[in-house]
C-alpha cells in the first residue's frame, strides 16, 4: 500500500511539474506582456524595462521556471518584498501579495462548495439510483431517469442564473450565496452555500443516479449476488451488503473525477454565483496576465484532479480487496 502511494505520489508530482512547465512556457507565448500591463497608461521603454525587471521577467525563461520551481521547495527571495518561505508560489504580479496566501484564503470556499455539493449529489444520486434499479421499469424508475436526463442536459449558468433570480432576488427563499468559514459559524456556512450546492447537486445527481442504476442492475445479475440470495440473505442485505459494494467501485471513480474537476473547474459555478473561490482567482489571473497566480491556480486545479485520482485508487483498495495486493 505504502509502495503504491509512494509510486502514485511520484507520478503525480511529475504530472504536476509537466503541467506547470507547459503552463509556464505557454504563458510566454501569449501575446500579452505582463510588464506592459504593470507599467501603466503611459509607459516609455525605460519604465517598461524597469517593470520587467521588477517582475523578474528579464531573466532567461528557463531560469525563471527553475527559480519558480525551486521556490516551492526551498523558498525564494524577492527584491524589495523580502523572503518568501518554503512552499513559495511566488508573488502576484498584480497585487504583489504572496500567491500562496491568497490561494489558501480562497481554497476553503472552493472546497466547501465542492464537498457540500458532492455530499448532496452523492447521497441523493446513489439512493435514487438504487431505488430505480430495484424498481426497474416502474414509475419511479422512469421519473428518475427522465429527471436525471434533464439534469444532465442543463447548464450551471442557466439553472444558476434562474435560481438566483427566482429564489434569491424575487422571493427571498434562499440567501445570496456567500461564504462564511465553517469554523466561524457552521450554520451560516451551510446557509450561505446552500443555493450553489443545490444547483450543482441538481446537475450532478443525474449522473450518479444513472451510473448507480445501471451498475446496480448489473450487480444484481452477478453470480455472487445470486449466491447471497441462495444463502437465504434477506433482500435488504443482498442489496446493501453485496450489490452495493460492487456498485460503489465505478461510482467512486466518477466521484473522484468529479471532485477533482469541480475544484479545478469551479470557474463557471463561482462566476455564476459571484463567489470568490479559486476559480474566480484563476480567471482574474488570466485576464491580468498574472503569471504566478495563474501557475498557482493551475497547480491547484490540476493538483485536485491528480490528488483525487490517487484517493480514488486508495479507496478502491478499501472497497475492493482484489486491488489490495496488486
Amino acid at each position: 500500500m505504502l509502495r503504491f502511494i509512494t509510486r502514485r505520489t511520484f507520478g503525480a508530482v511529475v504530472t504536476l511539474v509537466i503541467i506547470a512547465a507547459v503552463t509556464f512556457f505557454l504563458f510566454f507565448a501569449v501575446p500579452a506582456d505582463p510588464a506592459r500591463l504593470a507599467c501603466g497608461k503611459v509607459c516609455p521603454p525605460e519604465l517598461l524595462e524597469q517593470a520587467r525587471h521588477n517582475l523578474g521577467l528579464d531573466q532567461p525563461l528557463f531560469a525563471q521556471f527553475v527559480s519558480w520551481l525551486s521556490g516551492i521547495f526551498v523558498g525564494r527571495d524577492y527584491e524589495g518584498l523580502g523572503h518568501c518561505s518554503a512552499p513559495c508560489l511566488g508573488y502576484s504580479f498584480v497585487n504583489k501579495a504572496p500567491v500562496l496566501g491568497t490561494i489558501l484564503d480562497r481554497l476553503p470556499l472552493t472546497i466547501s462548495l465542492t464537498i457540500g455539493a458532492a455530499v448532496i449529489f452523492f447521497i441523493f444520486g446513489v439512493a435514487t439510483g438504487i431505488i430505480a434499479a430495484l424498481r426497474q421499469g416502474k414509475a419511479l424508475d422512469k421519473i428518475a431517469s427522465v429527471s436525471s436526463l434533464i439534469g444532465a442536459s442543463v447548464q450551471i449558468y442557466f439553472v444558476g442564473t434562474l435560481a438566483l433570480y427566482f429564489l434569491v432576488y424575487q422571493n427571498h427563499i434562499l440567501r445570496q450565496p456567500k461564504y462564511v468559514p465553517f469554523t466561524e459559524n457552521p450554520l451560516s456556512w451551510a446557509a450561505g452555500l446552500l443555493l450553489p450546492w443545490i444547483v450543482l447537486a441538481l446537475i450532478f445527481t443525474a449522473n450518479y443516479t444513472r451510473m448507480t442504476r445501471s451498475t446496480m442492475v448489473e450487480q444484481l445479475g452477478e453470480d455472487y449476488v445470486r449466491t447471497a440470495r441462495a444463502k437465504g440473505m434477506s433482500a435488504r442485505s443482498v442489496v446493501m451488503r453485496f450489490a452495493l459494494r460492487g456498485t460503489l467501485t465505478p461510482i467512486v471513480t466518477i466521484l473522484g473525477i468529479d471532485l477533482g474537476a469541480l475544484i479545478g473547474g469551479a470557474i463557471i459555478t463561482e462566476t455564476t454565483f459571484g463567489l470568490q473561490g479559486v476559480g474566480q482567482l484563476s480567471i482574474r489571473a488570466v485576464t491580468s496576465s498574472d503569471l504566478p497566480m495563474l501557475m498557482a491556480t493551475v497547480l491547484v486545479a490540476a493538483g485536485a484532479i491528480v490528488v483525487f485520482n490517487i484517493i480514488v485508487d486508495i479507496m478502491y483498495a478499501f472497497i475492493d480487496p482484489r486491488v489490495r495486493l496488486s
Partner: protein
Amino acid sequence: EGNQGAPAASGDTPGATAPTAAYKPPTITVGTADDSKGPAIAPEGAVKGGTVTMLDRDDFSHFDPAQIYINTEANFNRLIGRALTGYKRITAGDFKLVGDLATDTGTPSDGGKTWTFTLKDGVKWQDGTPITSEDVKWSMERTFASFITQGPTYVQQWLTDVDYKKAYQGPYDGKSLDSIETPDDKTIVYKFKTPHADASYAFAMAGYGIVPKAKDTKEKYDKEPFSSGPYIIKSHLVDKSIDLERNPNWDPATDPIRGAYPDKWHMEFGQEALQINDRLIADSGADQTAMTFYASVPPERLQQVLGDSSLASRRLNSPSPYGNYYYFNLDRMKDPKVRQAINFAWPSKQIQQTLGGPAAAALPTTILNENTTVGYQSYDLFNKVAKPDGDIEKAKELLASSSNPTPTVVYAYNQTPVQEQVTVVIKNALEKAGIKVVAKPLDRKTYYDSIGKVQNEFDLYWGGWGADWPSGSTVLPIIFGPVSDGAPNYSHLKDPAITAEMDKITAMTDIDAANAAWMALDKKIQETITPLVVAENKIATTLHGSKVGGAEIDPQQWIVQPDTIFVKP
C-alpha cells in the same frame, strides 16, 4: 445643448422611452483659504455611525499613492490618505478646489514657476505624529524611484525634466531633490523649470498623496499604507474584502473634504456588475446599507432600473468625464475627406442603442469633455444633433469628391462582448456609405499594445482618455503629444502649427484664458485635421441601498465618492 444624448421622456412600460434626468455639468472653482478649513459640509440628513458595505467587482491593486492613477484606487485613497489640495463638495454638482493638508491652494510666484504651500496645524499620521513638510517632500521624491511605475508624472517632469527618472533616482540612496525646499516643518516650496498655472490642480491628484518618511517600506508600502485620512485598514483579503475602521488621529476640523460619517466600511469584491445590481435592486437585509463605488447598472438592467419609479430615490446618474475617441491612423488614412465622411456616416445613435439607449450613453461632439473642462463650449461640425444616426448622403458626397470613393477601412477593436456588438453596428453603417470595413478583434490584454505601435496596420481604433484635472491641458497635449510606440497619440498627429499652439497655451498664466484657448483648439483640430471620431459618452446609473444616504457620483472621477456617504438610522 451640450448634452445631446441626455434622456428625454419618461415612462414605466417596457416599450417606453427612457426617463428624464436633468443633468447639469458640475461647476468647479478655486476656493479660498477659508474654504479650506474643516470640517466638510455635511449633506442633508447626514448622521455619524453605522457600517457601510461597498460592493464592487475589482479589488484595489494599489494603496501606495505614488502608484495610483486609476479612479477606483484614487477614490478609495480618499478614505485613508490625503494630499496637499483636493476638491471640496459645496452642494451637489458644485465643487471647489481647496487646500487639503495645505492651508490653501498654494501661492504661485516667479510667474508661476515657484509654488509655496503651508501645512495646516493638527494634521497627523495614524500614529499621532504630525505630518511635516519633510514628509511631503519625501512623498514627491520617492515617486522618482524605480519601483514606482504607475502614478502621474506631471510634477516630476516640471521639477526636473521630461525624462525625469534619469534626472533623479529617488531618495533611497540618500540624495534629495534640490527643486523642492522645506524651509520649516510647515512650509514646502516647489520650483518648476517652467511656469505652471494649474499646479494646484495637479497636487490634488491622488498620485501625489503623502507617504510618511519614517514608515516608508518602499515596494511593501503598496500593501501596508500608513493612514493620514479618516480610516485605517483593519483587514484586507486580496480580491475579496477590505474592512476599515476609524483613524483616531484624524481630526475632522482640519479636513474640508471628507465627512467620514460611517464608523466602519466593509468592502466586498469579486461579483460581476449584474449580480451586484441585482443585489442592490433586491435591497434586502444587510444589502440595504450597501452601495457600490463603480459597479454601475449594466445596460441589461437599465430598462428595469430606470423604469421602476420605486428605485428613483436610490438611483444616481452621471455622464462619463472621459473622452472616448475612434482615432484615425493618419499615417494610413491620408485623405481628410474620407475622415470627414466617416464622421458624417458615424452611427452614433445606433451605438447608443446598442449600449442601452440614451439613458446609457450621451452623444458628445467635442474632444474635450464637458464634465472636466472649465469653460466648456460645444460645437457640432458633423451635423450630429440633427442626424445622430448618420448623414449617409453627406458622407457619400464627400467620398465622391475624395481620392477614393470606395475606401476600405481596417477597424481594430478591443474584443469584449460590447465592443463586438458595436463593431457590428459600425460596420453596418459605414458600409451603407460605401466604406468597406475590415474588423479586426484584438485581444483585450494587448489591445493598447497593438494600437500603440506606431507602425500598426489599422486605420481606425478606439481609445479613451480622461483629464487629470478640469482643463484641456491634460488632454490635448497628451493625445496629440509626441508620437512613439506606446504613447497615447494614437492618431499620430504631428502638425507643427498645432504643437506650437499647444505649447503657447500651456505657458499661459491665466487659467481662464488658457481654458478658452483649449476649447478653441479642440474645434480647430477637428475642423482642419479631423484626426478622430468623437464617440459616445457613457452615462453611469448607479444604485445604492435604501439605508445609504449622501451618495453622489463625483463628476470628475465618475465614481460614487465616499466623502458624503452616511448610514441612515
